[in-house]
């Protein structure tokens, strides 16, 4: 367990993490010289005041968002894969992301259905996250309720998928009846975005994220014994139902708050745990959890750099980048290893 090669791997990943964080801050549509970025990072003045504002109020919040989104989604994916003992599980399968989308869809699209009631209440930065969290929480409550009356974890997986397609169907109906401008607004949200968060929003995001991540320490033991299956886990003294509910709760908290602030971001949650297993060659969660979080943060920081199309004025949707890179990685893993394991 205290394999010395793990230390080396963590060292490499930490260096990679710092480099990609720095890269993420230094590249963008506006070219800022490296010495100015370093100056701003160490609290000194840059040679142009606008550069200072760009770095402090846009790029650093965006990089921190990328770290939280990447690590949070990846860890959620790992929890789902262990709980359902299914290598294709991820935060999306429980329908939590769809639930968040449904909340946002109701907020943005239902105006034309129900008249001016919602449209009149101004859509601010705050209403989106609240709507998304409510949607995620609603679907999660339904899934947990179902989970407690169904004993088989595979059935919960299917129930989650069903809730997901149910939510998608409602979103489709809403989209059909809504106007072009609102549809566009919803579409842009669903592309995913790491930017646009103010320091205040980042603080709220950070609090939820920290609560979720800290709670994971309490379930390292159940997660490890679940690798043997539920019956063995029970015989090792684990309370299956309770552990399962905690895992579901943490996942939905993390996924819900991330989707709320940055939109539904695909593939990170599914692909990163596999990268971590490949890199460390272990299933032990004590190693795998920090590894997954670290790799997730790095992956999203790099994806964001690519999405920026450095030095150009254009920004690609982050969701397009994660899928463009995520899908081939999963295919490559499958071909190379012949099979994916949990």
């Amino acid at each position, binding site marked *: 367990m205290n394999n010395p090669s793990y230390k080396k791997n963590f060292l490499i990943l930490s260096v990679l993490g710092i480099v990609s964080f720095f890269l993420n801050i230094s590249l963008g549509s506006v070219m800022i010289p490296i010495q100015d970025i370093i100056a701003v990072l160490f609290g000194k003045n840059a040679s142009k005041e606008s550069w200072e504002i760009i770095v402090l109020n846009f790029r650093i919040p965006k990089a921190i968002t990328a770290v939280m989104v990447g690590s949070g989604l990846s860890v959620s994916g790992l929890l789902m894969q262990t709980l359902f*003992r299914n290598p294709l599980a991820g935060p999306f399968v429980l329908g939590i992301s769809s639930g968040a989308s449904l909340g946002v869809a109701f907020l943005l699209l239902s105006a034309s259905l129900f008249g001016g009631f919602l449209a009149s209440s101004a859509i601010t930065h705050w209403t989106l996250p609240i709507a998304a969290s409510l949607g995620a929480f609603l679907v999660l409550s339904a899934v947990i309720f179902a989970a407690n009356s169904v004993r088989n974890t595979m059935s919960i997986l299917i129930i989650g998928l069903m809730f997901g397609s149910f939510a998608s169907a409602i979103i489709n109906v809403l989209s059909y009846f809504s106007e072009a401008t609102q549809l566009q607004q919803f579409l842009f949200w669903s592309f995913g975005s790491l930017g646009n968060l103010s320091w205040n929003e980042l603080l709220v995001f950070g609090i939820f994220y920290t609560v979720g991540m800290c709670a994971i320490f309490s379930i*390292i*033991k159940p997660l490890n014994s679940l690798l*043997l299956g539920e019956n063995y886990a029970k015989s*090792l*003294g684990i309370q299956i139902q309770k552990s399962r509910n905690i895992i579901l709760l943490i996942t939905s908290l993390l996924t819900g708050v991330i989707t709320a602030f940055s939109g539904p971001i695909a593939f990170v949650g599914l692909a990163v745990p596999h990268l971590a297993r490949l890199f460390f060659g272990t299933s032990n969660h004590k190693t795998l959890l920090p590894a997954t979080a670290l790799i997730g943060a790095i992956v999203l920081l790099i994806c964001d750099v690519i999405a920026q199309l450095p030095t150009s004025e254009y920004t690609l949707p982050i969701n397009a980048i994660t899928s463009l890179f995520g899908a081939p990685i999963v295919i490559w893993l499958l071909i190379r290893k012949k099979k994916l394991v949990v």
Partner: protein
Amino acid sequence: MKNNILHTENLSIGYASKKTQTVVSENINFNIQKGTFVTLLGKNGIGKSTLLRTLSNIQQPLKGSVFIQQKALKSYTNKSLATCVSLVLTEPLPESQLTVFELIALGRQPYTNWVDTLSETDITSIDNAMQLTEIQHLKHNHFYELSDGQLQRVFIARALAQDTPLIILDEPTAHLDLHHTLKIFKVLKKLVAETSKTILISTHEVNLAIKFSDEIALMTENEFHTGTPQQLINKSMFDKLFPDEMIRFDKTLQQFVMK
């Protein structure tokens, strides 16, 4: 009675849903003495696994109760039971990249702290378990690389590392050839002799059961008999084990022969 590690009172086992109850076997009364090697015999589908699952609290009894160390099974928490009974099940392990050492180390979970740190006692237990089952050389292998026989000994080591007075194994010799079957029986017998643990297994190896067991529990359609192998032979109990069209039990050979 003081020496009982496990006994049942009017136990009925089976499966219950909201409306129907499927009784697999009822009125099971037996007890197991500390430090014995007990085998559970019965034909396929008679309910051996159901009984073992009920005894280990994986499923609930329909009626009656199970007592472990004179204490009702119902009154144990999962955690306190984990220090009294350890299991080797027939179900295949979900795929993962656990190594042999990590798999056995999971047996220490009832004793480790909240982040599963292994203490020196834990490491010693794991090493002992590997030594007794002769699998030290496999320590760093992934479990999916092992043969069925090796894997079975790893499972036994995991149960041993859990350090419980009672170990229950469901058909530990299924899928194994004669050599490896014999090896498992010898390992289990050695454990009972050297560690004074109590071991209960279900098996189809009647001959080996007669040779190795301190006691045999026989499950038939309507009855449940326990006794030393010789007692059961003398009472012609083995004739009831299988329908007698094709085979019969030969008392002098102490084994089943074809008719």
